[in-house]
């Protein structure tokens, strides 16, 4: 068989299997991300069956997946939402960083992965999965709840924090000098500020450049612009993902909605390939030795996220049950943790065990998150009854 035929067959088999898994996950209201990762693990290096030809395609397609993930994330938000969210909930955002990045940093340092590994693991344990959280909130009919804006503004803060964090990580991975690092961080910060100002004032011009009534033209312009910006950002050591995110923010109004509708299926496809590619490059034999640490991190960071949500909701005058719901909703980690780990692994400079730990951690948290959001109400009720119906109103 020629290599093209083999690659197509492998790719087809993987995508078909992903589709079946996605259906299975959907039936249980689960995120498909852990299944995608497991699929990648099974067919990669050291897995039950190796697929070499598909791995090559998976690498570039996975990169495009990251660009699309972040582009659509940027499209979801209007600049005004970002600015108000930042202003109102920054204390919760700061607590979120401190409480949830620290466990990852400490474990990485303890395992001797050095400062770069520590910063990577801090990012992995810090960032909640806005995709999983938004889906769970909608599935459970909690969009109208009073704690939901609190949850969403924490997610907004995290996403903006990513725009600062990813350039820092990129520069550390590239082994830049302190001055060089400061330069790329400065570029990132200036870029974020310029994009927010441009998007707030002149968003319609950016939208006009890419907008078109013809879907095909629109799609090509969008995708082209996203890859151009991402590539340029990557060349400046600001991280491709951040470039795409900023472009997404700058596109606004009806153009943003149309763009999101058009790109969503593409994002789902390429993001799925990204998760599989990450799994393919992770050696499943490296997971058992770090599984214990993954469980420790999962337990600690589930508790720290619940604490963060609880505190943030209390600041907004939400009652006890709502605080618990806000905390539990934030537990899920997913796509962005893998984006961070994927960036670190692709550049190199971190222990290969880090990829295994990040995979195991996300496998646990992407499953645990939606479960936590579902069981939190009965759990809180159970404990309240246990304590003799103590203060049911909980003010």
């Amino acid at each position, binding site marked *: 068989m020629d290599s093209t035929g083999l690659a197509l067959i492998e790719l087809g088999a993987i995508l078909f299997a992903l589709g079946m898994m996605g259906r299975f996950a959907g039936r249980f209201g689960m995120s498909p991300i852990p299944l995608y990762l497991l699929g990648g693990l099974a067919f990669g290096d050291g897995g039950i069956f190796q697929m070499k030809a598909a791995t090559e395609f998976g690498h570039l397609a996975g990169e495009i997946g990251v660009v699309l993930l972040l582009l659509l994330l940027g499209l*979801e*938000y209007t600049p005004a*939402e*970002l600015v*108000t*969210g930042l202003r109102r909930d920054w204390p919760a955002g700061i607590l979120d960083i401190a409480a949830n990045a620290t466990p990852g940093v400490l474990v990485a340092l303890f395992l001797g992965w050095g400062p770069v590994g520590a910063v990577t693991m801090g990012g992995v344990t810090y960032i909640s999965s*806005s995709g999983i959280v*938004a889906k769970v909130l909608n599935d459970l*009919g*909690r*969009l*109208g*709840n*009073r*704690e*939901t*804006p609190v949850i*969403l*503004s924490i*997610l*907004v803060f995290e996403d903006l924090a990513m725009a600062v964090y990813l350039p820092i990580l990129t520069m550390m991975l590239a082994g830049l000098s302190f001055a060089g690092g400061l330069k790329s961080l400065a570029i990132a910060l200036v870029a974020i500020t310029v994009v927010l100002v441009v998007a707030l004032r002149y968003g319609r011009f950016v939208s006009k450049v890419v907008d078109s009534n013809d879907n095909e033209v629109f799609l090509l312009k969008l995708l082209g612009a996203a890859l151009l910006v991402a590539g340029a950002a990557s060349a400046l050591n600001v991280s491709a993902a951040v470039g795409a995110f900023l472009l997404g923010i700058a596109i606004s109004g009806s153009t943003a*909605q149309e763009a999101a*509708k058009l790109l969503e299926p593409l994002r789902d496809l390429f993001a799925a390939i990204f998760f599989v590619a990450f799994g393919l490059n992770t050696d499943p034999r490296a997971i058992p030795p770090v599984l214990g640490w993954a469980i420790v991190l999962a337990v600690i960071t589930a508790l720290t996220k619940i604490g963060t949500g609880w505190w943030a909701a209390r600041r907004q005058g*939400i*009652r006890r*049950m*709502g605080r618990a*719901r806000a905390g539990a909703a934030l537990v899920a980690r997913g796509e962005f943790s893998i984006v961070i780990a994927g960036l670190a692994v692709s550049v190199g400079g971190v222990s290969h065990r880090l990829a295994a730990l990040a995979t195991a951690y996300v496998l646990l948290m992407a499953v645990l998150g939606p479960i936590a959001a579902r069981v939190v109400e009965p759990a809180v009720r159970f404990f309240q009854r246990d304590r003799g119906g103590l203060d*049911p109103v909980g003010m």
Partner: protein
Amino acid sequence: MTALPGIGVRKDFEVRSGRRIGVVAHKDGAIDLIVSQRDDPDACLAQVPLTTDEAGVLANLLGAPQLVEKLKEDHRDLPGITTRQLPIGGSSPYRSRMLGETGLRTRTKASIVAVMRAGQLHPSPGPDFVLDSGDLLVVVGTPHGLDAAARILADG
């Protein structure tokens, strides 16, 4: 009005019984009706997705009685005249036909003073006003005339 970044906006208010009632308006135009729980005002008892048509019907149901009450009030001094709201059902022969085609005024002596559509009031509709299923007609006339009008709108 509360912003839900990435999703849309929540518009709700507290009713006298202590519950919150309102809608979540998604960015893509979808609307969810929300009603808060009694024992936990932060949480929602229901989040019901509504299509644009369904939201319009609900708005009519809530808006039309007020109008009818007000009109009744206005001509309380005229005995024998009353106001009623008559729906254009999904099986009405007059849906997507012009109001003039019903011949309501000649046949029943009752007058259509307004049409409620999607919560919007269209006062004094002309004979070329095109009716649609889900519309609520506010009709003034004698009780006898109104009964006849209801039959005509339902069965032709």
